[in-house]
């Protein structure tokens, strides 16, 4: 049972070697080992999306991916989305004053970044469908949708 393993992965363009129990979710490796706390714990079972990061370029739940499966893979977190909050989504999020408590917003933005990568000009319905995986208990959904529309319009992603 147990037996720590060593895993080498790339996080925000930097190689890291971490030692952890093999079934440790990427979420806790990011947060507690690498101190990248922008990625949040919300449910641990892929129901809320607060832990959304990109794995090999695609949005994914950090809470559902054990570290043993991440050898050699590339992870981007909110901290790696842009060096200075200059990503069109981050600018749009500020322009629309989206966050309230803010806890889910890293995950929302990472999810939205995945959407715009796949579909740079989504319709409103496509936005609602794609963002269905991410909960916001403050109910900032109205502004999230508006910010994504703004980023799609204003920013070359």
């Amino acid at each position, binding site marked *: 049972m147990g037996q720590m393993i060593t895993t080498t992965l790339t996080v925000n363009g930097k190689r890291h070697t971490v030692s952890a129990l093999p079934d440790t979710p990427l979420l806790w490796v990011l947060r507690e080992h690498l101190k990248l706390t922008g*990625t949040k714990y919300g449910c*641990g079972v892929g129901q809320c999306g607060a832990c959304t990061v990109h794995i090999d370029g695609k949005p994914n739940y950090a809470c559902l991916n054990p570290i043993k499966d991440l050898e050699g893979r590339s992870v981007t977190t909110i901290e790696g989305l842009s060096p200075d*909050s200059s990503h069109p989504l981050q600018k749009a999020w500020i322009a629309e004053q989206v966050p309230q408590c803010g806890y889910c917003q890293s995950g929302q933005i990472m999810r939205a970044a995945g959407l715009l990568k796949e579909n740079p000009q989504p319709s409103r319905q496509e936005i609602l469908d794609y963002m269905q995986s991410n909960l916001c*208990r403050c109910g900032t959904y109205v502004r999230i949708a508006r910010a994504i529309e703004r980023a799609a319009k204003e920013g070359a992603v």
Partner: protein
Amino acid sequence: MSYLTRGPRRGIGSKANTAGRRRDERNITSTVTEVAVMTGVSMPSRRRFMVGAAGFSFGVVVGVPPILKLAAGEARAAAAKQIVMSPWVTLSTDGTVAIMSPAAEMGQGSLTSLPLILADEMDADWAQVRIVPAPPNDKIYGNPLFGGLQYTAGSASVTGYFNNLRQFGAQVRWVLMDNAARHWGVPLAELTTEPSVVAHQKSGRRLTYGEIAAFATIPETAPQVVVEPVSKAQFRLIGKDVRRVDVPGKVNGTAQYSIDVQVPGMIYGAILREPMEGAAPDKIDDTAARAVEGVMKIVPLKYGVGVLADTPWAAFKAKNALKVTWSRSARGWGFSNEKGYEMFAAAAKDLQRKGVAWEVKGDPLAAMKKAVTVFEGEYRADYAYHAQMEPLNSVAAVAPAGNAVEIWCGSQSQTIAVTAVAKALGIPENHVKFNGMLLGGGFGRRGNRDVEFIVDSALMSKAAGRPVKVMWTREDDVHSGRFRPLYVNRIRAGLDESGKIIAWHHRVVCDRVLAFMDPVRFKTAKGRDNIAMRGTELPTYDIPDRMSEGLQEDTGMRTAPLRAIGVGQNSFATEVFIDELAVKRGMDPVQFRLQLLKNAPRARHVVEEVARMADWSRKRPGRGLGLAYLDYSGTQLAGVAEVSVDRQTGAIKVHHFWCAIDAGVAVQPDNVVAQTESSIVYGLGLALMERITIDNGAVQQSNFYDYQVPRMRDLPEIHIKLIQTPNHPTGAGQMATPLVPTAIANAVFQLTGVRLRQQPLLPERVKQALLEGAARSA
């Protein structure tokens, strides 16, 4: 008294009381640890201050906010000197104005809006303002609306602090002008201010606030300055939609919540908690838990079993591996929603059982006897869960000697957190160093007097002898939730021969809330359960003889205020019942409300406005419209829902929601709109899907797969009209939530002719009601 005008502001029409000796110039260099603004301030105050009726003591050192050391560039800031103007304001010679924000930031935006009120009256240049979360200190930073407790709840921050913050801002401005007047040898009355500048128009001389800080003397006693009454024209910042200061950190992952805190030597804790209040661990089998790699210690607690480990994952795994049998002593054993309803409904019906009076006006029982017809209605609501996105957690570092502690937490009350931790560790309060962090949602879950989720880490750190972060899993957060109680409301209305409501009697039977969540406040409230009963009062309806009374039961269930507190269910009962009465009278629901609101022009206005927005009288095939009106702590609101119903499944779809809201002066208008959007989405969940069920005393739900909350696709088109009126600002953080279930239920009636009287309006309940409705009309 001459009142001030702005841009540039003219002289000062105030009576100064500066008889006390003036202090010499004092330059205070910060010696406290540098802490960025969002990570909170860690300065337990060592002195108590007298706060006079006119204001507060001036020039008393609380400590220079550490943010000043980081402000406006290190080099310049290092050379700058700071001068403490008051416990609320510290001015730097580089022009930086540090303003304390007394409330906890949990999404509602008061971290920005409270200092903004002070800055407006002080005429500070907002670009130079740095906001500092205030340290725990009820005497200085308490909310007058909560009897001076530093407590963030009830959407009461702006409304509670508004007058004082304006007064404090005016006093600081006066002191700066007084210093400039003496410096130049001119009468103070000839001076004006522009943002962070005092000007003497006659001579063309100007001094920035930063320049004045270099030579200012600060009076010992606060000057009495007359503040203009609320009137929109005079404000520079209020009403102008200043951007929230917490937003930038919330789009790049740098915003710090307590769950993000890491301190040197820290380990992790998880706790298997009792399945219900009062069920202590009886037998503990920790064999499997100890076998988890990384587990360091098992900690038996009164209310559960704790695990200490070197990683969160090891702590969670070990917690899940614990086998514990629980004592059967808890009151809640055997309880269920069904039993609760049975018990509460019987009590509600039995008029021999007197409740605790909440609102009594006129002589409702005598009036009821005069009624020609009496109608009755019964309404119910299930338990509901806060589901704040950040599961409960805290970090504590107990000193090796056990006589002091530093805590990091997200609490709706800074001082309650300090008191609870001191009590749990048996140490004096001034040995608790408090670090207030951003809250990943509160909604009422983090304001209980025992703050068990903060005490956790203090106890676990003491057991570990080193810093510990205790995190609740989402399952812990649900299983040990403290819910909006189970409700049965029963209303009787007496009508005269013309159909006018002449008597109103509202009985509320539910789990006790205040007695459980805050025994201290319950005692002060003399046994009246403010949380359970709010919303039964009817200040605006023309029903002179009315009463509401509460029968709150101790079922052993854990309860708490939940967004919109009692108003969420009590106004559902009232407003669905009113809708039923309108139908019985053969009146349009809008016209019926307007008739009842004949003496309340602000209330009439929101109803008329929302009816106009929704195009109320236009029929939509396959859709129904429903109205709800509410006076929530003075805020006037009305909402209309447009719905359709899937008759096969009973599922309700909300297509549009219109809301008109008048909260007086809107300090941050766009944020009032954002809070209203938020309240509506929250209300949508409570209305349609959110339900906690209890079986044999224990919670049946575990996570977001069996406790559903609204998602993006559930979103209706939301249309909000903010009506700004020159009245004292009232709350905005949760006011629209109760409108939603009510307007939806009333809309379903308009569409189907079937009444829904129980929250949430689950598909199976709707389906059942439709079947019963069909059977009745057959």
